């Protein structure tokens, strides 16, 4: 595709959801209401680990205003010995996560739920439910959970033949690492730790559910996938998918945390039992205690290089906290860690560790920042030991077209080296640093994803266009699809409305995640528009009485393909729409595909920090992110994704963490205590979009949403080292910790 000729692709068009969001008209799940609606509330475990001997709900049921009570008995049980995969989730764990079954596995784990005519009555009824708990020993941190004498969460989990909290292992091997290290002149091995951090979406989970007397079920909810909501709810309630209509509300942030469900099946059972629509809205405290976050980690990374800077071997071990049920993102940690580099000998292992805290959920490039943090910090030390510029070291070893990655693929044309070269050439990299300032760099990789998507493109009777896809828009997909549709049809983007269908109005579409949405939906939208253009040419051909092949589509109108086709005045989209009925009927087309060829995303970041050595405060003062976007369909949104990822990475590196008290409870389950950065903590985050088009996509798109959170942890750590001459091997680099390290150095 010729970039110069693009009229709408690459334009910063006005976002279709903007006005509604800034005026408060956008309808989120918590805004939904229905006549006769009642309120659901969840009773949560007061213990981090306890066997549930019995639950007596009789007093709660007797309370006036209470319409239904549910417990795990009302949720479909999937026995632990048979996997029931759904995407990357396993319903054995999901059924136990939405409602504790044999045991309560973390403080805040749902054990029962009530629906009542008011929220207050529902809350009061929860207090009347009597649960007989046998309190069990519990364990929170990874290092404690993998001790031989640790309390075991799940009797059915075995690791190396013994009961264990290690729920799984994932391993990538390439070449022979031992032989590789033997070739190395310099070997650096270091261990690292990161803390769990929450996705921090501003909108708590919410849903409104109505189960009609005939069993037809409608769900309005905040999620990253209405089809995921339908499938999981169906599995957990036993209601066939065909009887469930899941309607996506506008979403107030997800970052991966809304790729699973918490409330919907509970609300469905409450609605089914009560015969009333049931609404459930989490409090922030519930969000912090019982949803998300991402894993804590313990990792060790060893990298060896020859004197000339060529990396010859790399080994990584990554322990990730899964929370109460298996499923930490070890694939992202172990798989992405070394993926940016062409390394002949790699051994990368991830361990999935359960402990008594809320089950982790996906968080923006799940696992990848953890892997990159360790690798990119070791590379910084390696560059220092070799006397090389840290970006030159990365460039020398950068993966390129044809590189075989340890996690499997052989890369096609990628733009990783271009991001490093752009960083090397950027004024930021050579800008003088002030007193107590330091500069660090790091790179990152994210798999990206394709998968199932559906689109329907309809020409309206007045000659405009409505595009429907099946993905909640969390990163600008509607605006980007409008740009693409307008480009292909040769019409103004304002004539294109992009809507998000529900499970009844659009074909199956996998959830919004993996940086897959624009890649996949642009593919199906493009093919749908191409079909529409074929129809438009056929209609024009019919009107003119010539062969459809003799009609071309240009600038939003049909034209005879050449003088031999005949001489006819052009027919515009509006004119053809007006004649649609007499030329064959409505004009529109849809495409449903399992898309492939997403290809990875790469980024290189430069970070400057300033350290206040008296307080231990690290402040990011300048930040530039370079990323291969393939093709930036809507640059404003691409930049927004890059800035958002960096902002979240800054929080992870410097301030955010879950803190548990001595009773195994989250001690900072509110934004008053959970240290998330705000605008005033951040500099303007500069962005440089590199465009090396993905050869496997019609517009060249690569996913952009996740890779920007991958490099910041290490970029900031390396910058702090550059400023202070002291390395930190654990996050967050909070003020008391930085100060203690500085004082330790001085002493």
């Amino acid at each position: 595709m010729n970039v110069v000729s693009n009229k709408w692709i690459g334009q910063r068009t006005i976002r279709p959801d903007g006005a509604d969001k800034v005026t408060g008209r956008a309808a989120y799940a918590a805004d939904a209401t229905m006549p006769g609606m009642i309120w659901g509330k969840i009773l949560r475990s007061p213990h981090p680990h306890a066997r549930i001997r019995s639950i007596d709900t009789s007093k709660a049921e007797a309370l006036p205003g209470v319409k239904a009570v549910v417990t795990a008995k009302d949720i479909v049980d999937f026995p632990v010995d048979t996997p029931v995969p759904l995407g990357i989730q396993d319903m054995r764990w999901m059924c136990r996560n939405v409602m504790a079954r044999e045991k309560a596995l973390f403080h805040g784990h749902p054990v029962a739920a009530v629906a009542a005519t008011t929220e207050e009555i529902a809350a009061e009824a929860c207090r009347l439910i009597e649960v007989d708990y046998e309190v069990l020993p519990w364990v929170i941190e990874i290092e404690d959970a993998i001790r031989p004498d640790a309390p075991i969460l799940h009797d059915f989990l075995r690791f190396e033949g013994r009961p264990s909290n290690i729920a799984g292992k994932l391993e990538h091997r390439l070449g022979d690492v031992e032989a590789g290290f033997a070739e190395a002149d310099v070997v650096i091995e270091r261990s690292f730790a990161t803390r769990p951090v929450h996705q921090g979406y501003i909108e708590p989970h919410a849903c409104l559910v109505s189960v009609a007397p005939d069993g037809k079920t409608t769900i309005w909810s905040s999620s990253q996938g209405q089809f995921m909501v339908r499938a999981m709810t169906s599995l957990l309630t036993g209601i066939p998918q065909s009887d469930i209509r899941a309607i996506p509300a506008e979403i107030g942030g997800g970052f991966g945390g809304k790729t699973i469900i918490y409330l919907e099946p509970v609300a469905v059972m409450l609605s089914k039992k009560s015969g009333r629509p049931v609404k459930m809205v989490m409090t922030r405290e519930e969000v912090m205690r019982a949803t998300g976050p991402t894993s804590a980690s313990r990792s060790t990374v060893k990298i060896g290089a020859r004197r000339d800077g060529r990396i010859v071997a790399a080994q990584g071990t990554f322990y990730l906290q899964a929370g109460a049920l298996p499923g930490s993102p070890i694939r992202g940690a172990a798989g992405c860690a070394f993926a940016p580099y062409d390394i002949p000998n790699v051994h990368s292992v991830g361990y999935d560790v359960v402990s008594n805290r809320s089950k982790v959920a996906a968080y923006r490039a799940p696992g990848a920042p953890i892997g990159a943090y360790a690798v990119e910090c070791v590379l910084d030390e390696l560059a220092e030991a070799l006397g090389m510029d840290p970006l030159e070291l990365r460039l020398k070893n950068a993966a390129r077209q044809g590189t075989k990655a340890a996690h499997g693929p052989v890369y096609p044309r990628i733009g990783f080296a271009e991001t490093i070269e752009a960083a090397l050439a950027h004024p930021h990299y050579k800008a003088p640093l002030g007193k107590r300032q330091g500069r660090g760099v790091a790179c990152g990789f994210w798999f990206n994803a394709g998968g199932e998507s559906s689109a329907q493109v309809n020409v309206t009777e007045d000659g405009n266009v409505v595009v429907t896809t099946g993905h909640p828009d969390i990163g600008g997909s509607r605006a980007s699809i409008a740009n693409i549709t307008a480009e292909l049809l040769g019409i103004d983007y304002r004539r294109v409305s992009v809507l998000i269908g529900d499970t009844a109005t659009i074909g199956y579409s996998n959830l919004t995640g993996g940086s897959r949405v624009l890649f996949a939906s642009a593919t199906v939208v493009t093919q749908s528009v191409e079909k529409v253009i074929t129809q438009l040419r056929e209609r024009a051909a019919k009107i003119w009485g010539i062969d459809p092949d003799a009609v071309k589509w240009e600038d939003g109108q049909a034209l005879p393909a050449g003088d031999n086709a005949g001489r006819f005045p052009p027919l515009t989209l509006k004119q053809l729409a007006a004649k649609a009925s007499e030329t064959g009927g409505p004009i529109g087309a849809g495409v449903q595909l399992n898309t492939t060829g997403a290809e990875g995303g790469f980024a290189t970041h430069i970070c400057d920090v300033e350290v206040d050595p008296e307080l231990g405060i690290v402040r990011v003062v300048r930040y530039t992110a370079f990323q291969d976007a393939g093709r930036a369909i809507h640059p404003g949104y691409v930049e927004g994704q890059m800035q958002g990822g960096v902002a979240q990475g800054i929080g992870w590196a410097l301030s955010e963490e879950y803190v548990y008290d001595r009773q195994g409870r989250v001690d900072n389950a509110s934004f008053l205590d959970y240290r998330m950065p705000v605008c005033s903590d951040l500099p303007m985050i500069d962005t440089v979009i590199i465009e090396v088009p993905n050869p496997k996509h019609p517009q060249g798109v690569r996913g952009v949403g996740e890779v920007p959170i991958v490099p910041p942890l290490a970029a900031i750590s390396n910058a702090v080292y550059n400023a202070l001459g002291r390395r930190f091997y654990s996050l967050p680099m909070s003020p008391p910790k930085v100060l203690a390290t500085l004082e330790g150095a001085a002493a």
Partner: protein
Amino acid sequence: MYEFAYHKPSSVADAVKLLSADPEARPIAGGHTLLPALKHRLARPTALVDLSGIAELRGIRREGDKVVIGALARHAEVANSDAVKGAIPALARLAGTIGDVQVRNRGTLGGSVANNDPAADYPAAVLGLGATVVTDRRRIAADDFFTGMFSTALEPGELLVAIEFPIPEKAGYAKMKNPASRYVMTGAFVSRGPQGVRVAINGAGPCVFRQREMEAALAANWSPDAVANIRQSPDGLNSDIHGSAEYRAHLVTVMAKRAVADAG
């Protein structure tokens, strides 16, 4: 919501009458502490006495060698007041760093001081300037006003009407914000003037307090260096997930030093 009575008196006398008649009634100004407490059911007053209709509680004016600020003055009003900026610029700067724009346009001086949250800003200025708290019935010196965590010398039904700030020769304020809530982790308000040399520390302990050793050092030598080596004992200081008592003790020295630098 549970039920309570709502009153909106138009004079201090009427407000005091309402508050005295019902020990469970609470005055409300900006509502920044009381409303969250109501929502969380930490407070269940029988009546709210809304002070917003009382003109005598408003106003900021210079009276000779002091600045008098009405209890209902919002933080933004103090921050932007020419009288305050001209006479006690450190106080205006302090007001301009409280919370965020929304908080500053709603929260009031009287509410903050009467609440005496250990992590609030204003108590440091009141104590650090040696101000006088004027109530409906008496005048209370700052040194006698702040009696402990969330407690003051105010009696039940007694209403804070205004605060008189003596104009110092020099005054400065420095604080470190809690990285989550943005309340004060530790702050220091220093001044030199008619009330002598004062160093008031907020955020670090359960209640704002004077750091006498630093005051003595500054009286002898008004410079940041004078306090740079004075260590605050961590005994009795706050300790939480954001910082230990030792960290806060360290901050006392740093903030005092920076406050003196701020004062010039």
